């Protein structure tokens, strides 16, 4: 072993950070112009291995700063401060169609960041690096409390920020894959929102009764949040992705019970059968299944199922009646839902109705369907099991990795600002501003 190796110093600041925080990766003490590879390795909770790497050339001072220096190749290129995380991909030989999702938010994601000599592209994991450090990435800040919720027949988890409160609330809905997915809510609570992650497709009550929940289930969730002693009942928002958007739009317009302060809808549509139960929405998809397309790789494209956007107003949520601010986030390469077309149509409807001042649309070229909190790998396609068919298929989500990752970073930042301004602002004169977001 070359004794000069020990000279190399690698630092990652902070070594323990939240999932949406940036870090600074620096290498020091290498010869000027030294070629090196910075490598990230992560073994996720379900045992799969992921890696990312960038090729760098040290400066005249013998240093590399990932925030300032360009990667000349690897899984990402250019000046990409967080490239080592968002460009993570399954190691060669892995099963196809993997998607990284942390289901246990009480432990951190551990990433090994290492430095190797030269510009290497394979077999890195089998070599001894020059140096390496371990970095922890957390979905949950210290002091955030995780509270399982079962009252009212709900299957949910409430995350409360630390402190006495009371806090504005968020009702957080994921999409057609079901399950109780907590990480976005844990992160929202780490930013000061009492956030409830709600399982509405595979809750205990559906498993037991075999019946899909109705609107009352969501209204119960809203009530539980509203009445919680540490939640500001008059400041509740709803955030939905994919199918969660359908639910959010419907309830924000039509629910008599829910008085939302604002809503965030990611990668979804307002197109729904009239009558509006969740069961009917799912039925509508099944009926349009014939419009499913399959690409050359055998990946399933579902974006056509709701196209063309109907002109008949009774076939969509009447967003012209919306009374609270709405943030729409869409990826222009969404292959799973016609989110960009729906967003355009919603904009037109609201302009006609005179409430378009409530609407903000964030539209991202080359971003796909799964617009999630930043700095986790992009899945252009993955294995997916829909709740009703119970078949595992390979679904195309869309998006080009670098553009999609930039979209995630920008959309998350703007979502937090939107929630902060609408849920925390408005009472204190001059008191809306953003922190280090």
């Amino acid at each position, binding site marked *: 072993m070359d*004794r*000069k190796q*020990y*000279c190399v*110093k*690698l630092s990652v*600041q*902070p*070594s*323990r*950070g*939240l999932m949406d*925080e940036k870090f600074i990766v620096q290498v020091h*003490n290498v*010869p*000027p*112009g*030294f*070629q090196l590879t910075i490598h990230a390795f992560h073994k996720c909770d379900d045992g799969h291995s992921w890696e990312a790497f960038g090729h760098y050339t040290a400066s005249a001072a013998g240093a590399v700063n990932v925030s300032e220096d360009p990667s000349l190749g690897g899984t990402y290129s250019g000046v990409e401060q967080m490239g080592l995380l968002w460009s993570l991909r399954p190691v060669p030989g892995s099963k196809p169609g993997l998607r990284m999702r942390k289901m246990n938010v009480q432990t951190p994601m551990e990433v*090994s960041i*290492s430095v190797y000599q030269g510009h290497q592209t394979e077999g890195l994991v089998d070599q*001894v*690096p020059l*140096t*390496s*450090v*371990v*970095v*922890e990435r*957390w979905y949950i*800040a*210290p*002091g955030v409390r995780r509270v399982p919720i079962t009252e009212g027949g709900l299957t949910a988890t409430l995350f409360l920020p*630390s*402190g*006495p*409160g*009371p*806090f*504005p609330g968020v009702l957080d809905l994921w999409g057609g894959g079901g399950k109780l997915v907590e990480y976005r809510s844990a992160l929202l609570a*780490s930013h*000061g929102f009492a956030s409830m992650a709600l399982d509405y497709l595979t809750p205990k009550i559906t498993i037991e009764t075999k019946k899909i929940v109705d609107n009352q289930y969501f209204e119960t969730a809203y009530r539980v949040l509203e009445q919680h*002693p*540490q939640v*500001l*009942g*008059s*400041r509740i928002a709803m955030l939905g992705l994919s199918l969660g958007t359908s639910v959010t739009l419907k309830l924000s317009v039509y629910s008599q019970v829910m008085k939302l302060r604002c809503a965030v809808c990611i990668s979804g549509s307002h197109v729904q059968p009239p009558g509006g139960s969740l069961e009917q929405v799912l039925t509508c998809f099944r009926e349009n299944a014939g419009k499913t397309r399959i690409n050359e790789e055998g990946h399933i494209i579902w974006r056509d199922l709701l196209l063309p956007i109907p002109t008949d107003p009774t076939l969509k949520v009447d967003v012209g009646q919306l009374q609270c601010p709405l943030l729409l986030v869409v990826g222009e390469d969404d292959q799973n839902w016609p989110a960009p077309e729906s967003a355009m149509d919603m904009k037109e409807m609201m302009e006609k109705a005179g409430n378009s001042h409530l609407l903000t649309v964030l539209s991202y070229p080359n971003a796909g369907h799964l617009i999630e909190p930043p700095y986790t790998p992009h899945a252009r396609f993955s294995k997916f099991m829909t709740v009703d068919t119970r078949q595992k298929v390979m679904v195309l989500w869309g998006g080009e990795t670098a553009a999609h990752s930039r979209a995630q970073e920008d959309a998350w930042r703007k979502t937090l600002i939107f929630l*902060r301004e609408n849920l*925390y*602002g408005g*009472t*204190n*004169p*001059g*008191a*809306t*501003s953003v*922190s*280090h977001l």
Partner: protein
Amino acid sequence: MSQTVPPVLSVHPSRSLVDEKLKVLVENLPPGSPVTLHSLHRSEDEHYWEAYGHYVSDHRGIVSVAEDLSVGGTYTGIESMGLLWSMRPVPGSRKGLRLRKMNVRSPMLFNISVYNGLITEGFREQTPLASALIERWYMAPGVQRIDIREKGVRGTLFIPPGPGPFPGLLDMWGGGGGLLEYRSSLLASRGFASFALEYFNSGELESAELEFSYFENAFSIVKDHPQVIPDKIGIFGLSLGSIMTVYLAAESTIVKPLCCVCVSASHFYPPGKNLHGVFEVMTMNSHMIRVDENGHHAWRDMGLEIIKEPSNRINVEKINCPMLLVNGLDDQNWPSVECADEIAQIMSAAGKGDLVTRLHYPDTGHLIEPPFSPHFRATKFKTATGKQKVIMLWGGQTKPHSDAQEDSWRKILSFLQHHLYSRETPKARM
């Protein structure tokens, strides 16, 4: 419960190493609002420590501790870390407490809160407007902790993450004894394989490892470890530990440190004796211990008397490695500044003046520790010789002492980095 929107308090980063700085921000306050920022910590031995600063929000309703002025409290001025270094035991606590983290595998938890108005007491009885919990760690992720019980030597070795091998450090604390891991785990978090050595149990002279060979063995254990570079080892000592450091550097034929850091050092060691001898000399001169008006014991004058005796001096002219001497000018426990003066003089006279680097700080006491921890001017101390616990006067004033801790730690790391990590040859091979 009030249904008004609370302010938003954020502390960044929420998980950090103890030598890292924090940004504390309060937003969404009414503009021009007087508030108190407060920190609270419950120690492992179940004492409460707190600090607070008085602020007024700006026209945007924001208080930024890193940028704004504290106009009152346990610290004043623009002090981004004042909520940590100015902490002191809450009113009603026992006298002479000292805050030290014994279990480095878990973080220190601090509750940072913002209260309405300018408050000076009774924090626990009031509900803050907002609060946040932060973790402060002495150990970075991936650092390995290894219990050492080998060759009769006791201690804990901390190895940085990564394949290594790494430069090593022998880390020795002072006359309070026991096994203190926190500085070593922090040094390992900064890239040095560091061995926290236990050489006697608190207050038990009988248990003291008295022979010089104990320390030489400890050094060898570091040297022989497969993840340590055998010719890149330094020694770090504080107080009594730094006496051993100076002695090893000067007298050992086996131990060859590449550099030494001596905090609050002395160069006194009765020749031909072992540690017992050190204590004997102190006992002989104990009538010179000055007890001040608070009943605190100051050993400084006794120390001055002891070092007058030339035969008690270590032959520092024999030292051949760079020495960093860190001292507080208000050290009431030992005349360490006078000792450092002499060490520098003697080495200079021997043509080795360029090996010595000195850092001395005004209004700084004896216990110069890693930064942002509270200052202890006087604490309960169980002496090795005495059967009682006395309150030992260490010296220093809180603000200058804290500045010294921050400045010296940075310079110590830089010194170690330079001597233990620098490139062996200037020629680059690509």
